[in-house]
């Protein structure tokens, strides 16, 4: 009987230090022996500096998201590439706040993060990326990522298991066919998954003879986060998302299927 191992993988912290602590606690309780973060540490939430010591104290393996790259290099915007003026407005507010409040001492850390993490679990080649292995800001949504395309990504990037984030909505798929393969979007722990629930989601990977993923919802003190966001003058629309579980901004990126499930 092979030894059973567990790993926790999350993404999209978005400065939500309270959710980060709750997820790390949950992962420890479930016996995760290593924890991975797929990037985007800042944005959206309050006090961006608070997440860094937590990640370092817990020895979390962190890779670089597009936001981390932008803040670390002092870019003028997050490069999210929205076309809707309303989305751009909120993206700018969020980025300007995060950039202004991220201490300069963390910039080299953000710059130093690797774009990809590779490891091996149960003989499976595991690849972790922020958006996709080929582009940091590529969205892999469940309804717009066909099996054939995911197979191509695994083939092109020599992986059997692919773990990504960036889009903020968690899903997983075991690919049918001879080649097999497992693709998991671990979601984001910084804000709810546009499902009307206030919990945030991460992935728990169980490894024995194979790799299996479980998407785990985690509750945290969202009222306290909302209070901090208000105190920091962050937009009411962001606070509303935290308190209701429905996305209120940056909706244009959602494919029609995923968007139709949301309120806005």
């Amino acid at each position: 009987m092979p030894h059973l191992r567990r790993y926790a993988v999350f993404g999209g912290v978005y400065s939500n230090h309270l959710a980060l602590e709750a997820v790390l606690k949950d992962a420890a309780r479930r016996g995760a022996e290593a924890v991975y973060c797929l990037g985007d540490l800042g944005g959206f939430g309050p006090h961006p500096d608070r997440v860094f010591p937590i990640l370092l104290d817990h020895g979390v393996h962190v890779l670089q998201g597009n936001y981390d790259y932008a803040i670390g290099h002092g870019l003028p915007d997050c490069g999210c590439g929205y076309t809707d003026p309303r989305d751009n407005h909120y993206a700018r507010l969020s980025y300007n706040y995060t950039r202004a409040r991220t201490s300069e001492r963390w910039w080299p850390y953000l710059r130093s993060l690797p774009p990809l993490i590779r490891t091996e679990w149960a003989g499976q080649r595991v690849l972790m990326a922020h958006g996709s292995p080929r582009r940091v800001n590529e969205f892999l949504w469940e309804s717009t990522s066909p099996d054939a395309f995911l197979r191509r990504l695994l083939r092109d990037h020599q992986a059997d298991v692919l773990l990504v984030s960036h889009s903020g909505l968690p899903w997983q798929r075991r690919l049918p066919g001879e080649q097999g393969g497992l693709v998991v979007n671990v979601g984001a722990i910084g804000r709810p998954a546009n499902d009307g629930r206030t919990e945030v989601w991460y992935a728990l990977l169980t490894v024995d003879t194979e790799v299996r993923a479980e998407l785990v919802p985690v509750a945290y003190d969202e009222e306290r986060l909302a209070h901090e966001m208000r105190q920091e003058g962050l937009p009411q629309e962001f606070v509303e998302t935290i308190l209701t579980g429905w996305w209120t901004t940056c909706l244009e990126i959602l494919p029609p299927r995923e968007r139709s499930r949301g309120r806005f």
Partner: protein
Amino acid sequence: MPVALPLLEQVLPVLTEAEACEVPFQGLDTLWLQLTGTLCNLACRHCFISCGPHDDRVPVMSLSRIEALLAEAEELGVKEYYLTGGEPMLHPAFFDVLERVLKQGPTTVLTNGLLIDEVAAGRFRSLFERAAYSLDVRVSLDGMTAAENDVVRGRGTFARIVAGIHALSRAGLSPVLTVVEHSAGLAAEAARQRFLAFARSLGLKQPRVKFLPLVRIGRGARHTGRQGAEEAVREPVPAEGMASLQCSNSRLATEQDVRVCPILLDAPHARLGQTLREAHRPVRLRWASCATCVYEGLSCRT
């Protein structure tokens, strides 16, 4: 008004192979299917491929051709599909084709909306709910009033398009409205806001609007009185800009061949082969219309 060039001349390359920038091919992400060739139930004045009710110079796609392309696309790992024309809903097996493509990947239908009645909207809705992948419908509308729209799309079309959008809306779908910036008033940021508000007034709960710059080829060139011939991509394009060009990861397939992109449907030198594999190679920015993509950021994708 300047005299328009004949169609063929408009789509001839303005640069030689040696002069033009090469766009590296990054793999086939997007496959456009020219489902009804150049057959359309409208003859819009700005149409860049000059489609119309009697135009069969590019034929309607056969089911066997569609199957062959989809089989190849599956092997190549295509990420998304677009059904276009002409008017794709004129295809005799339109909904069967749509259902088939949706089994393989997310699909967007580009339609003028004229054939969307309650029954068609219901079929779209049913596929939207049942399909494994996302279905998107894009309806072309070139103004917020009959006067603004009908001058390019044809008399009486505004009311019919709006009826189609209403039908989709009643079926619980939110199509993307595609607007060509055919007049100065439509090219400004304020126009975008007005159009979004207009889309909401049509009952669309999650309105989206896509603005497209005019492409100065085909009938579009005659409409604007501008020719593309003086425009060309003569400067090197930075790598980042290259990667955002459609021709770096997308191809258009017709009944007869596979082409660089949807805009170059008529360009003889834009034919890359008959199969997707033959078209799996770099292309060069030789055409005047390439300037629209490079300098105005045109992407036919949603």
